[in-house]
């Protein structure tokens, strides 16, 4: 066992973990952060995306021991990190309003990847959004509304919200 100290969604944790424990399993099984899901388990689908020291990573392809000394943000931590307790993060809100999901399994990863993209590129073009979230797969193939949700969130976060009508959400 190896001891690790991590901050997850603003809380500090010290745990002894087996070195082979993947970060996603540590989050789900040790900390109960089941908002982060395991999709493909082969680094392809991105459903398990979290932020490690502010950068998006696939938590099924990181050992928990590698997160020692790091700050982890999961889908469960994005709303309060926005400063207004309980309020949805603008990207969560946009996915809700634009119906950026069908079965919803890819959604936590899609939202974490989108937040990471918008941090680096606050007003991405449609192509930049599609390329920016290429590490995330939606097996319902619901990409149109996912892209529209990211566009709406980008608008809202930069202070010029685009309405659902102009973006043409399809519910």
């Amino acid at each position, binding site marked *: 066992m*190896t001891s690790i100290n991590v901050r997850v969604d603003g809380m500090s944790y010290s745990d002894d973990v*087996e*070195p*082979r*424990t*993947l970060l996603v*399993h540590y989050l789900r099984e040790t900390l109960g952060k089941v908002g982060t899901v395991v999709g493909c*388990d*082969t*680094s*392809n689908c*991105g459903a398990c*995306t979290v932020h*490690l020291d502010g*950068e*998006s*990573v*696939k938590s*099924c*392809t*990181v*050992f928990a*021991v*590698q997160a*020692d000394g790091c700050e982890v943000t999961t889908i469960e931590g994005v709303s309060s990190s926005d400063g207004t307790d309980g309020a949805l993060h603008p990207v969560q809100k946009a996915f809700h309003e634009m119906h950026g999901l069908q079965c919803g399994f890819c959604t936590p990863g899609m939202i974490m*990847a989108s937040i*990471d*993209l918008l941090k680096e590129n606050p007003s991405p073009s449609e192509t930049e959004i599609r*390329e*920016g979230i*290429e*590490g*995330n797969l939606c097996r319902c193939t619901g990409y149109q509304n996912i892209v529209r949700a990211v566009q709406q969130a980008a608008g809202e976060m930069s202070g010029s919200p685009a309405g659902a009508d102009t973006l043409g959400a399809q519910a």
Partner: protein
Amino acid sequence: MIPAPFAYARPTTVDEALQAIAEGGEDVKILAGGQSLIPVMRLRLAAPETVVDLSKVSELRGVREDGDSLVIGAMTTHADVVRDPLIQQYAPLIAEATETVADRQVRHRGTFGGALAHADPAGDLPAVALALDAEFVIAGQNGRRTVPAADFFVDYLTTALEEGELLVEIRVPKLTGQWGMRYEKFNRVAQAWSIVAVAAAVRREDGHIAEARIGLTNMGPTPLRARATEAALAGAAATPEAIAEAARSAAEGTSPSSDLNAQADYREHLVQVLTRRAVSAAAGL
């Protein structure tokens, strides 16, 4: 899919890492960003006795200048390589190719040295390192040695790294003069490996091509140089016709494989097309 158990070492310096590797037993794996190693361990295609994690060896991260060379620490992540101002200035080909590697999440974790030491023939960075005549600085118990890129890539997933050794940094000569560069990659879908890709650096002089360096991705078990095309381009006019003619020999000396993505003869065709495009763009046409 959980990896088999392993002993774990978390050194903080290169010397400690070498020590941990030496003491790790028969089967030691070095963990850089883990974006190739962890999937392989999860599938239990690899079940090392010991994993030496370089996460905390900070001296292996970052890009610096040393005279006529850029020195890239082996643990510098792809994301850091892409946004590094020195790389943008002196070796934009590396940034251009690195931006096409996998996806954002993988680029946040994967490292420059890890990708080169893994030496996947479909990986993008080996051909770039070969085209730029990079040198590999390798640390071992008896000190450091430097291996040119042409000798570093030995075979499929095999490099000149010996047991007990560690790749610490990659030295890339700064290109001076009027160099243009381009990485042309062909694949079918997002985050896919290259079916074929071509890295080209071209120096122009008075309307002519003075020198061209061309690295090929996935045209054999190791990255290759398109030597025949390079020879045909040296001193050639910088015209579409001359470049197209020279690119016809791009597959000479290659031995591409056939797999579910492409047959060998298709790769031989593709490499000519991509070489023409890459050299044309690098020559400013």
